[in-house]
């Protein structure tokens, strides 16, 4: 550890020395700015040249530097080479496609965007800190470029989606056009439910009866891995408590219908009722007593026949069930209970749940946008990048579904990269081996759809940073065991938890969130 530290420190000092040297050598003042000035100059020129003949100018050959999240597939270099051949012909451009890998991609995003590296396009997403970077001014305003360089996209992305990515009057990304619902829910062993004659799962009581039957008759711990997600999301959804302002931990809006009614949920009657119930669940052995320290997913245990319930969002559940149907045939039937059924409404994801953005330092934003336009709208480009090489990585069956890998090919040929940023429902093909229930679920969600009013509330917790940190500490230390029923005396633990939260400054955090929520609700005209 010490050695690492020393190493890091010494490297940094070397850097400092070198950069001093460099800027000294550079002579005329600031080290980075002249170059930057040049690049904006040239792009401005390009733009004006393009305006003249009314058509985008593609006479100069460019290499675009793109970044995607995650890992490349083994066949990606082949795919990109193929793709570049087409691009070079059509747009006189090639793309160097980079991947962040799944290791610490957050750090890499920070570095890429903070260092001003010349990146022409990258995957952007609300869950990958799009709003944070947007606020910091890391992305280029596309408002003027879009109608000219990506007219089709400009026309076809719904108004609401453009609104999602408009911050301070600037359009900072191109959202994917793929309506998605990712509500929480429980995956469970339907075959066991039938075998045990447990009631169909429709509400909390039936869930309890099911868990009890599994525990007593099957002698299986129903949620054997870390059960936190299962219990926590169930709690929020059962009472319709809506997480608000991202990382606030214990602060929720009491219901979808009353967004201004913000509370710290540990002080509610509902929470009291809930933890008492969870105590009985824990005592009945629905999960193990070390559940908070286990790192294994409950789903792993379902696969080995030693678990019965697993928390997943709807697409995740679909993938999980498809995998079980394929690789664990001894499990006859899986079921899924989406928590949307508690209150009968579903909230679609924001348009910018996935999308593509152009960083401020891009050298060729126009061309990059033209490539994106092609990629989204031309099925030839779309299929190649999204599904790989036809016949090699995938084939389409008679229903237009993707079979990947093609029959008779090595399973490793099945293609997959994080292509979500340019997804467009018009060109998207469903997978042939998806779980049958998924389409039905999507229908159900669509019918009960209501717009997302909570996700766009973005909070900067700077004024209450220390209180929030203290609250989160208390939450981890006292709130989580209480929620999981892992305390000897619920009343006492609850009282203790509440007083600790008060001492940590939960009121200040609550007041701050309330203020921000009011401001947001006024702006959007919510009740």
């Amino acid at each position, binding site marked *: 550890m010490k*050695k690492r530290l020393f190493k890091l*420190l010494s490297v940094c000092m070397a850097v400092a020395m070198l*950069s001093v040297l460099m800027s000294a050598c550079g002579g005329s003042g600031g080290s980075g700015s002249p170059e930057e000035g040049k690049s904006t100059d040239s792009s401005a020129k390009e733009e004006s040249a393009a305006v003249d003949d009314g058509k985008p100018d593609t006479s100069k050959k460019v290499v675009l530097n793109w970044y995607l999240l995650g890992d490349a597939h083994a066949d990606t270099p082949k795919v990109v080479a193929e793709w570049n051949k087409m691009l070079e012909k059509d747009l006189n451009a090639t793309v160097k496609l980079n991947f962040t890998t799944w290791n610490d991609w957050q750090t890499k995003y920070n570095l890429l965007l903070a260092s001003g590296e010349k990146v022409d396009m990258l995957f952007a997403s609300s869950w990958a800190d799009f709003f944070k970077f947007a606020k910091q001014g890391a992305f280029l305003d596309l408002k003027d470029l879009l109608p000219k360089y990506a007219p089709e996209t400009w026309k076809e992305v719904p108004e609401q989606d453009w609104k999602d990515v408009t911050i301070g009057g600037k359009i900072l990304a191109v959202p994917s056009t793929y309506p998605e619902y990712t509500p929480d829910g429980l995956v469970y062993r339907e075959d066991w439910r039938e075998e045990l004659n447990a009631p169909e799962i429709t509400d909390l009581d039936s869930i309890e009866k099911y868990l009890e039957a599994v525990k007593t008759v099957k002698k299986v711990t129903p949620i054997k891995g870390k059960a936190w997600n299962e219990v926590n999301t169930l709690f929020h959804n059962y009472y319709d408590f809506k997480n608000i302002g991202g990382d606030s931990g214990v602060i929720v809006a009491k219901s979808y219908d009353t967004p201004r009614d913000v509370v710290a949920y540990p002080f509610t009657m509902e929470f009291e009722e809930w933890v008492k119930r969870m105590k009985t669940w824990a005592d009945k052995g629905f999960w193990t007593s070390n559940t908070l320290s286990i790192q294994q997913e409950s789903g792993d245990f379902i696969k080995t026949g030693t678990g019965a319930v697993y928390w997943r*969002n709807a697409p995740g559940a679909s993938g999980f069930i498809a995998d079980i149907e394929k690789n664990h045939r001894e499990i006859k039937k899986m079921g899924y209970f989406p928590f949307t059924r508690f209150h009968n409404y579903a909230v679609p994801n924001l348009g910018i749940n996935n999308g593509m953005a152009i960083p401020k330092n891009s050298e060729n934003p126009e061309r990059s946008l033209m490539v994106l336009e092609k990629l989204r709208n031309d099925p030839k480009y779309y299929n190649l990048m999204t599904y790989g090489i036809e016949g090699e990585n995938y084939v389409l069956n008679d229903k237009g579904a993707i079979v990947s890998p093609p029959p008779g090919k090595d399973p490793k040929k099945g293609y997959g990269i994080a292509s979500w940023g340019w997804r467009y429902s018009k060109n998207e093909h469903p997978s042939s081996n998806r779980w049958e229930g998924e389409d039905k679920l999507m229908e159900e969600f669509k019918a009960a759809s209501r717009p997302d009013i909570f996700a766009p509330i973005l909070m900067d917790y700077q004024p209450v940073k220390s209180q929030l940190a203290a609250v989160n500490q208390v939450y981890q230390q006292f709130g989580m065991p209480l929620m999981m029923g892992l305390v000897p005396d619920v009343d006492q633990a609850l009282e203790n938890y509440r007083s600790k939260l008060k001492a940590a400054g939960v009121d200040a955090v609550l007041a701050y969130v309330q203020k921000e929520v009011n401001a947001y609700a006024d702006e959007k005209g919510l009740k």
Partner: protein
Amino acid sequence: MGYIVISVLALLCLLPFWLIISGSFSAEDDIIRDGFRLVPNHFSIDAYKAVFSNPMQIIQAYEVTVGLTLTGTILGLFFTSMAGYVLSRKDFKYRDKLAFFIYFTTLFSGGLIPWYILIVNYLDWKDSYLALLVPALMSAWNIILMKNFMKSIPDSIVESAKIDGAGEFTIYWKLILPLSTPGLATIGLFLGLSYWNDWFSANVFITTESKYPLQFLLYKILASAAVLKTDIAGNLGADFKAPAETLKMAVAIVVTGPIIFLYPFVQRYFVKGLTIGAVKG
């Protein structure tokens, strides 16, 4: 009696290693169901299959790592010992200032982002082996260590060589270096290990898969196996699901295997070299 106690203790120390080995050969399902065992219930090489699913990749990564470790250690030793030697000479005028300048770097740093900006924007070393090699060549700690070691070599040796007409570099190369073997071995081991174990620079700077060093490649395999289980991957078409638990063990073995054999060769220099480093300044 003493021998028996020591042997038992030694065996106990080996136990965790044995658990890793047996874990890497167990079936994933067994580990989830029953936990780790000394003898696998079902012998399985799935984890190794996952690690070596693309053998060319591992071989390439080995080449990168071995190449980096060798060049890095040799160059690093050369530069570190030169710096250490200069600082150990009492007749070097700016000795104290320079020593302070180096020592100072151990107290304050510029942070990750300036480092990144320097390497990517100014030196243009993104996706280049240089980014893996150069930053770790010299470290203040190693230089101080080296200086202190060389201080213990009597000045009269330098003087006698001068009288015989040797130049500065000859003195350093022919006299000081051979006398500093324990120090060199120690620092060589430090350098070798740090190059061998370094995954962070590759994580930050390398984007081409064929340039990944071993540690990072394996770290990446583990991370991908973990990601494939999360919700993010709900839509990833990858059909290949790696056995995450046993994979960790297999990766640990693949990574540590070769470097463990380095220890016996340099260990005898180790104690002496380290005690010298205990005195700073």
